[in-house]
């Protein structure tokens, strides 16, 4: 083990991400109960809990994906960071901006739009960090003269597109956009669709990186198939977003084109089915590895969520599912089942690589318990949302309160499974946070703190 600690920047990002997820889930659970009991925690109105939940859990996705990149490049890929200082600066700007955003939500000061409800001035430091990150990433990765494995491309693409789509998400500040409601909503969702696509590039890039490392085989990450799927993902990132806005009166061709583009993902769906047996063998082989177990869960959730996504991207189905909890099932199912599982794989992979096995083996049983609680309650959570969505889809525009009363049992199941899921994740997050701390302890591998 060397004394070089530049990879600690990545670990700091990961630990902050873990804290963000732990807190974000708590706000989610509170928000879930406010759905059922509007009087619950009046001091913290739903207008505050919702953005707190969303911003914190989205931060988790970005922080751990970014942390992984800052960690893996110098530590495992032989690519020293172009600037370790810039990585640390990135961390501090992220942390301070995050605190400012949380403070503004808590005090009830909004001014942005859905998902970025904070005052747009707070976006300036966010832009700044992505410029820093981009410069650092490309100058670091450039040291590898190539050809690059596909995950380097995916990470780079994620960074560039985050920048483009986050800019697009602020076009509403210009009256030309904001004074035309159809343009305003269309461009907003164009940017959100691609923004999700950009974080998926970061996260799926991480998944491929981990799979490559765990299997010890570089071949797939350099194969034509991997690059083909990368291009398909990029194509969908650029042109697939309009399935969110089938019912917004923009030009018809925009929707028709998005329908076509979305259906190209059938190819990925088919490929998963095709590879079913081979994946099964891989799973068997790597069953013992904590990190791999998360990748298996992510694989299964990809299948379920992609199936649902394909279905609701057909306009005829979308007509009934749009604006219902089925959309929420799709959004939460993917961010939890796919993104979060992959990022936990990344956290526990780092731990496995950096600590002697007797240290992390001690909490393996607890992590496994957390894993099963989280996955089983996610299945209930997902089903409850789909059922609530079907109930809302059947709503004929009559009494809103009656419709909400009708789907109440499902929302109950949703909130309760949310609590269970939070507990399952908290167990894993606690160990992840603690063990990453051990990795960073000054004496290299220190005695682990008592759990």
């Amino acid at each position, binding site marked *: 083990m060397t004394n070089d600690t530049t990879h600690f920047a990545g670990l700091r990002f990961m630990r902050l991400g873990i804290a963000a997820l732990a807190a974000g889930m708590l706000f989610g659970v509170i928000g879930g109960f406010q759905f059922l009991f509007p009087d619950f925690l009046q001091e913290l109105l739903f*207008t505050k809990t919702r953005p707190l939940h969303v911003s914190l859990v989205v931060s988790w996705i970005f922080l751990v994906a970014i942390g992984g990149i800052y960690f893996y490049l110098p530590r495992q890929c032989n690519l020293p960071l172009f600037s370790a200082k810039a990585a640390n600066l990135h961390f501090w700007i992220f942390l301070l901006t995050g605190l400012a955003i949380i403070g503004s939500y808590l005090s009830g*000061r909004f*001014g942005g739009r*859905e998902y970025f*409800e904070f005052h747009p001035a707070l976006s300036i430091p966010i832009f700044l960090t992505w410029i820093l990150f981009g410069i650092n990433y490309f100058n670091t990765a450039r040291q590898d003269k190539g050809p690059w494995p596909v995950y380097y491309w995916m990470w780079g693409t994620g960074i560039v597109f985050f920048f483009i789509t986050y800019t697009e998400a602020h076009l509403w500040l210009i009256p030309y956009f904001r004074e035309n409601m159809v343009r305003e909503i269309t461009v907003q969702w164009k940017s959100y669709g691609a923004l999700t696509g950009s974080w998926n590039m970061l996260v799926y890039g991480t998944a491929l990186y981990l799979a490559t490392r765990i299997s010890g085989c570089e071949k797939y990450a350099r194969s034509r198939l991997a690059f083909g799927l990368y291009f398909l993902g990029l194509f969908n990132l650029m042109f697939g977003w309009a399935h969110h806005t089938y019912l917004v009166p*923009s030009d*018809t061709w925009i929707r028709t084109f998005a329908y076509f583009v979305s259906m190209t993902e059938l190819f990925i769906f088919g490929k998963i089915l095709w590879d079913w047996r081979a994946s099964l063998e891989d799973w068997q082989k790597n069953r013992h590895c904590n990190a791999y177990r998360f990748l298996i869960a992510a694989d299964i959730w990809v299948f379920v969520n992609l199936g649902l996504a394909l279905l609701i991207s057909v306009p005829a189905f979308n007509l009934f599912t749009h604006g219902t909890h089925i959309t929420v099932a799709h959004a939460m199912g993917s961010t939890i089942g796919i993104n979060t599982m992959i990022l936990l794989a990344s956290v526990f992979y780092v731990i496995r690589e950096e600590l002697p096995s007797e240290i992390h083996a001690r909490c393996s049983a607890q992590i496994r318990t957390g894993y099963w609680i989280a996955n089983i309650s996610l299945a209930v959570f997902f089903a409850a949302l789909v059922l609530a969505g079907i109930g809302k889809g059947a709503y004929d525009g009559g009494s809103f309160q009656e419709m909400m009363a009708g789907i109440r049992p499902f929302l109950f199941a949703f909130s309760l499974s949310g609590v269970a899921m939070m507990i399952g994740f908290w167990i894993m997050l606690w160990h992840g946070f603690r063990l990453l701390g051990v990795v960073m302890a000054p004496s290299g591998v220190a005695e682990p703190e008592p759990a």
Partner: protein
Amino acid sequence: MSTLCIAFVIYSATIYTSGTAATHDQRMSDEARHGQQLYQEKNCVACHQFYGLGGYMGPDLTNAISRRGEAVSRAFITAGTASMPNFQLSNDEVTALVEFLRFVDKTGTYPPQDYDVLWTGGVSQEDDPR
């Protein structure tokens, strides 16, 4: 790769311009603009949707004005309900929000009332201003 990027630029430019050129020539009044800003500052989107996009605790507001009348909207916004907070808004602010809702109401119909489902899985919407 470069073809893809060029296509993306042209596509985006079209969406920013002709792809979303409103079919109705409605100018946004200062009042409505103020209402739009209030809608963001009070974070109404946490509970409400336009065109089905937004939070789900309250109803979609796209056509709230034409479906249930301006007086209903005004009453809800002024006083709140058991499940909607009372934001203690001034009379002017309520008027601005109602004006904004009236503006949105004229941009289209949601959910669609008059449509056909095509064999391709597509939907043709007759009450669509496109």
